């Protein structure tokens, strides 16, 4: 993890150099290069896209409701009527998987995004203003990082109670601190940089400098961090579900489904194996995509 971060900062340097010479790659250039160089990453992106489509169109893809039970049809194995079988309440697992992908993807993406925005904002503030503000923000980050993440999540969930929005909030609060540290160090580095000094000398406002230079330079790092944090959020939610602190039935999330199904592992293994496989697939896809993006954004490492 740490090693990666170090390298990612180097990636930032390259982008800056290019932007100075004025031949910055656009987003689409990057994507094109990614498509050419890393087939696995492209495949992963397609997998992720498919899951997103499934989540959006869930109601059109299944005749069943995700919460209606059929008590006389519990734990039935995969069949023509129920392609992936039914769960302990006789609910169609495929249907719950589709609806669960909404929740699970949201839990993967939303807290990561929120944590990132919060972390980036605080990181920039700390790095640019410095002094007491910096010290305070960084100590709060230290405090957050001091907790074993699971324990912090447990404590926050205990305080807030279950439910989707609380899970999102909890994971955002768990995520922000490491982001703020990275952004802060980038901001400090850039602050001392000659061209930023020069820009300041010719009277460009601080805010403008921030927008023009610091954020774009952190962006590659943040994009990669994003693809790494999404899977970890999905996994943390499944662990929270294990402790009964996550999403609550009748709502569906993959983590909850794995957890509800685990007691039937020996008599109806499909209950937890199907959502487990989906989690693994999405987590792997995000990991591959992250690796691919890093390679593209960081030619230094690629060249080795």
């Amino acid at each position, binding site marked *: 993890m740490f*090693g990666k971060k170090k390298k990612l900062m180097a990636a930032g340097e390259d982008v800056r150099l290019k932007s100075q010479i004025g031949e910055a790659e656009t987003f689409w250039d990057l994507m094109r290069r990614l498509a050419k160089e890393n087939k696995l990453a492209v495949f992963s992106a397609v997998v992720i896209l498919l899951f997103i489509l499934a989540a959006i169109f869930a109601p059109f893809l299944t005749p069943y409701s995700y919460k209606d039970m059929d008590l006389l049809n519990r734990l039935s194995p995969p069949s023509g009527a129920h392609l992936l079988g039914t769960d302990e309440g006789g609910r169609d697992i495929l249907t719950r998987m589709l609806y669960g992908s909404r929740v699970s993807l949201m839990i993967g993406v939303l807290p990561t995004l929120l944590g990132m925005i919060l972390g980036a904002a605080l990181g920039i503030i700390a790095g640019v203003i410095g002094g007491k503000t910096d010290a305070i923000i960084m100590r709060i980050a230290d405090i957050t990082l*001091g*907790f074993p993440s699971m324990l912090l999540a447990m404590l926050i969930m205990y305080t807030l109670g279950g439910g989707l929005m609380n899970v999102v909030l909890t994971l955002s609060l768990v995520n922000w601190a490491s982001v703020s540290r990275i952004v802060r160090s980038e901001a400090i580095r850039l602050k001392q940089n000659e061209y930023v000094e020069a820009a300041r000398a010719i009277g460009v406002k601080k805010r403008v400098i921030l927008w023009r230079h610091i954020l774009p330079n952190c962006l590659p790092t943040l994009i990669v961090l994003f693809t790494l944090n999404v899977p970890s959020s999905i996994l943390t939610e499944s662990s929270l579900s294990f402790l009964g602190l996550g999403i609550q039935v009748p709502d569906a999330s993959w983590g909850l489904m794995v957890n509800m199904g685990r007691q039937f592992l020996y008599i109806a293994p499909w209950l937890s194996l199907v959502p487990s496989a989906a989690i693994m697939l999405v987590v792997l896809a995000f990991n591959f995509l992250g690796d691919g993006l890093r390679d593209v954004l960081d030619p230094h490492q690629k060249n080795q």
Partner: protein
Amino acid sequence: MKQNIIKRLLQAVFVLLGVALLIFIMLRIVPGNPIATMMGEHADPATIERMTAEFGLDQPAIVQFARYLSGAVRGDFGTSYSLGRPVAALMRQAFGNTLKLAFLAALFAWILGITCGIIAAVKKNGLLDRLFMGLSLLGVSMPVFMVAMLLQYVFAFHLHWLPISGVDGLKSFILPAIALGWNSAGSVSRLVRSTLIEILQEDYIDTARAKGNRQMGVLLRHALRNAMLPVVTMMAIQISSLLSGAVITETIFSINGIGQLAVQAINGRDIPLLQGTALFSTAIVIIGNLLADCLYSVLDPRIRKEA
């Protein structure tokens, strides 16, 4: 360097205070009276009120915080609601088990992770490399409790190799340690591999090679020493993730450790126990980070010079 360490120590103390305050505040916002919850269905309101006073929960928050803090400094975390014993004694007993589990898990993760990482780096893009990296991704992407339950089912229940649960001797810690270390092994091997690949391409390795050292010797003597730096840093991060994972592993394998205490505290709405376990595990993480910092500055001559 001394100054640096003192500065870090002071910071750590500050962070610990912040953590204590944060935990305290979080646990007070929860709706409902913890005493009413503790006493359950059949308790009458008058008794609940009296007990609330007895536990000092009717005092102003600031008084409660001062008491809790001064107690914590003296090693007194109050009495657990759900287990009826001093929290400190419960944690002392549990810590040994968690330490054993975490140590074995780390050992497993390091041995497996470093071995696989080295092999993968040397045979870069070979079959073994792909196999190990694939496995490591599997390790990173599986929920801890799935790994734990599968191990328990296959090796304890089916093959009868190891006990299903409990803390009866070292053998009952093996499966939990593997379950807990599985995830870390994945990330360690990936880290070792990428760091080694980078170092193996640097000039001094070539020089060494040119001098006629056999490849294995080069690897171990030069590359590994340099690769240790990020790995040591990772160790600090792993303390935190091992403690996180212990929460679940201990529950599945019935290991009476800090993680299981924390789960019990949550289930039993046991505030003193929750406060104690949270503060304690955070302290471990912070101390771990501090040690890693010191170790880092010993290993890396550049930092030593700067200080």
